[in-house]
């Protein structure tokens, strides 16, 4: 149970050329947007200090746009920079953002929740063949062994509904979906076995709250889990408080989570948070036919109702 995609099949290389092509387009488009003044800043990725890394950057002049990159190291969901949590970025003015397909789902979710308006931003969609998993060897080129788990079952390699599109999709290897298999494995367990599984997972949590800080949907100015008068969720990293925290987190993101797996990526304790997210997504699809997509929806499944919703569990 780790973020590392396990090498069950022979590791297959993923063509690096596609990232270079995307980088060139991003640079050119960012420079154009900035110099013609149609945006005040572009949120994108620049190379990190260590080889094989990249970090988010808010670029404000056309010259600096030449530093923008897109590579398998561009793991972050930049949508986070458009939320209330990063007010200083929004204050700059009209923004352009580089977005992979999975990040775009978060953007659609935020628009649906009235956190921003579609016409306020320029979306530079990037065709994405995958990014590195958490424990990948970044000196080696991207392969099916170092691919992030979410990318193995990605359905949005080519983002839709964007203003500009960078890159073209190469032929991709067919990979076994690990997360779906893991979810099925858990679902087949007895409740007692599942409790034991999660107890073990949650007990490792150190409550660093990185999972919350990185999530584009955790933009509440006061988190319920930080309140101590009255205290709803114990903040000490003890098993009881941890379990409550994870249940509350999954519940608050139910029907909202875009499945970008950022929470799982940043978790220092390797807790498979995306399994919880996926389970909730599956539940809400089964119950109310809701799925996170690239089109903003006015209301999430838990913000609306139908008079004839299922109530077979109510006496």
């Amino acid at each position, binding site marked *: 149970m780790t973020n590392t995609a396990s090498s069950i099949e022979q590791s297959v290389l993923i063509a690096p050329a596609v990232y270079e092509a995307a980088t060139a387009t991003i640079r050119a488009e960012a420079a154009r947007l900035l110099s013609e003044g149609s945006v005040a800043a572009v949120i994108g990725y620049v190379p990190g200090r260590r080889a094989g890394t990249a970090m988010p950057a808010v670029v404000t002049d056309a010259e600096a746009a030449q530093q923008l990159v897109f590579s398998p190291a561009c793991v972050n969901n930049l949508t986070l920079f458009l939320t209330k949590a990063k007010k200083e970025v929004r204050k700059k003015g009209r923004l352009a953002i580089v977005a992979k397909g999975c990040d775009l789902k978060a953007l659609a979710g935020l628009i649906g929740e009235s956190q921003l308006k579609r016409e306020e931003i320029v979306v530079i969609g990037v065709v994405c063949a995958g990014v590195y998993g958490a424990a990948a060897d970044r000196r080696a080129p991207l392969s099916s062994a170092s691919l992030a788990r979410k990318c193995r079952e990605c359905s949005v390699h080519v983002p839709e509904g964007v203003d500009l599109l960078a890159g073209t999709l190469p032929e991709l290897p067919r990979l076994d979906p690990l997360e779906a298999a893991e979810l099925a494995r858990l679902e087949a367990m007895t409740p007692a076995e599942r409790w034991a599984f999660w107890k073990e997972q949650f007990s490792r949590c150190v409550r660093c709250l990185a999972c919350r800080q990185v999530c584009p949907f955790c933009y509440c100015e006061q988190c319920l889990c930080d309140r101590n008068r009255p205290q709803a969720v114990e903040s000490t990293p003890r098993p009881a408080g941890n379990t*409550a925290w994870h249940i*509350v987190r999954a519940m608050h993101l139910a029907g909202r989570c875009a499945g970008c797996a950022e929470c799982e990526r940043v978790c220092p304790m390797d807790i498979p948070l995306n399994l919880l997210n996926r389970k909730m997504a599956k539940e*809400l699809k089964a119950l109310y036919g809701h799925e996170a997509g690239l089109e903003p929806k006015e209301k999430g499944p838990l913000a609306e109702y*139908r*008079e004839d919703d*299922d109530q077979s569990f109510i006496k």
Partner: protein
Amino acid sequence: MHAEKVNHDFEPKIIAFVCTWCTYAGADLAGTSRMQYPANVRVVKFPCTGRIDPVFILRAFQKGADGVLVSGCHPGDCHYMAGNFHARRRFAAFRGLLDFVGVDLQRLQFSWVSAAEGGKWVEVVTDLTERVRQLGPMREFKELEQEECWSGALAAADLQEAYEAIP
């Protein structure tokens, strides 16, 4: 009208989260009509089922409840028009989540009890109490409460390796 008092080995603690407009009034009616029901239930009233946060249910289990009942107005009777419709969706999703982390859903009951249904209140409370009595005490959350710290178990091989490499 006093029922025989029966001694059981285990008396379940049941917490009932109810809305003030329907179920609370229904429970009140049961009381004023002198209907008998298990004294195991502690009633906490809320303005509306829409106010009942899933975190309250967790808190109840953590603080020693063996069973939880959430009850409000029938669909269409909500004092605030749609509070119970929203609650219905939220609790449907919450049940899925609890089941996934391994909580026995038999300990959690949702119901609609109107102000006129004193009899139904008695029935729901009795059913849940007896069911939980059969299941025995809810141990999972209580055990968690007692655990002070991290289990020390490292599930991932690479974490274990990194841990062992610490001089």
